[in-house]
């Protein structure tokens, strides 16, 4: 049984995948489609026939997307720049958040009376854990962003979130927490724990770019194969 609303939803999803349609472009095309269908239905076509013929007369979604992309080029570029800025800021904020988690775990470790080396190890684990979770979250948002927020405002929204995250975490992670930690344990223990943290941070800084490059290479190969 032909479901018109489903068919129109699919058709609009196809238009959405073609990168060029912005704002109410798709709504305007849908109005055209419905008007054409109404005319064909009056001429005696079934709903399904009218839909198929109208969609065909309107043109292929990818070709329409290409034409719209030419008109919308400045807005599309701006949206991409916003996302780039948001990506850089969120990446930096993730680093700051990881360091914040490390500092908090250091305070907790000292509060629970752990050996400074154990506390240092704890901060490395906390940093890495938060970093991995945040990056996974950022990738997840990237995948579903088009369903969460309209494409035209998504980049701006991401940029704003990035800036806020960055400032809040920077303030908390790099000034407030070390002050608390050093008051709780004394300079010698703080130093011992910090050495372990520093070794962990060094290992992460060396490993992260290698892992990232590997991931990019594997993804590129997979895309080429597909």
């Amino acid at each position, binding site marked *: 049984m032909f479901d018109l609303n489903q068919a129109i939803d699919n058709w609009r999803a196809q238009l959405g995948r073609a990168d060029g349609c912005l704002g*109410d472009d798709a*709504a305007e*095309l849908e*109005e*055209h489609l419905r008007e*054409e269908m109404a005319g064909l239905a009056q001429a005696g076509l079934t709903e399904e026939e009218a839909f198929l013929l109208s969609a065909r007369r309107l043109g*292929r979604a990818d070709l*329409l997307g290409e034409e*719209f992309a030419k*008109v919308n080029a400045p807005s599309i570029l701006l949206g991409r720049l916003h996302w780039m800025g948001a990506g850089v800021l969120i990446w930096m904020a993730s680093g700051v958040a990881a360091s914040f988690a490390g500092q908090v775990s250091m305070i907790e470790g000292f509060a629970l009376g752990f050996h400074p080396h154990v506390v240092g190890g704890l901060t490395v684990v906390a940093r890495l854990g938060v970093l991995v979770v945040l990056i996974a979250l950022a990738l997840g948002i990237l995948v579903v962003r088009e369903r969460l927020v309209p494409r035209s405002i998504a980049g701006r929204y991401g940029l704003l979130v990035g800036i806020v995250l960055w400032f809040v975490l920077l303030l908390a992670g790099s000034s407030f927490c070390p002050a608390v930690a050093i008051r709780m344990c004394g300079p010698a223990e703080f130093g011992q724990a910090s050495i372990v943290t520093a070794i962990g941070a060094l290992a992460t800084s060396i490993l992260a770019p290698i892992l990232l490059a590997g991931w990019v290479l594997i993804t590129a190969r997979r895309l080429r194969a597909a």
Partner: protein
Amino acid sequence: MACSKELVAASATPLVLSVLAQGENYGYAIIKRVAELTGGEMQWTDGMLYPVLHRLEKQGHIQSEWRSSEGGRRRKYYRLRKEGARQLALEKQKWEVVHSALTSLWEVKPCLT
């Protein structure tokens, strides 16, 4: 005989501006009017005229407004602006040059003696 994509693209601007010079209208009706005038000889799908409308709007030649029709349908109406009328006059001059050049060539009967 069907017009090439390039010819359609070149003539789309004066066609759309001329249709709107006869009064404001919405996308579907503009496209049907163009199709009717060209007798379906344009090798282009209906949807392709929307990017043309949007480009003309960005250039300031026309302006648009969403309105509801009596049937409850939402339609985006386009209207010619002063800049558009000026552009149409320019387009007219250009196309008349092409038209008169071709007509004068085609009207000359070859002399075979």
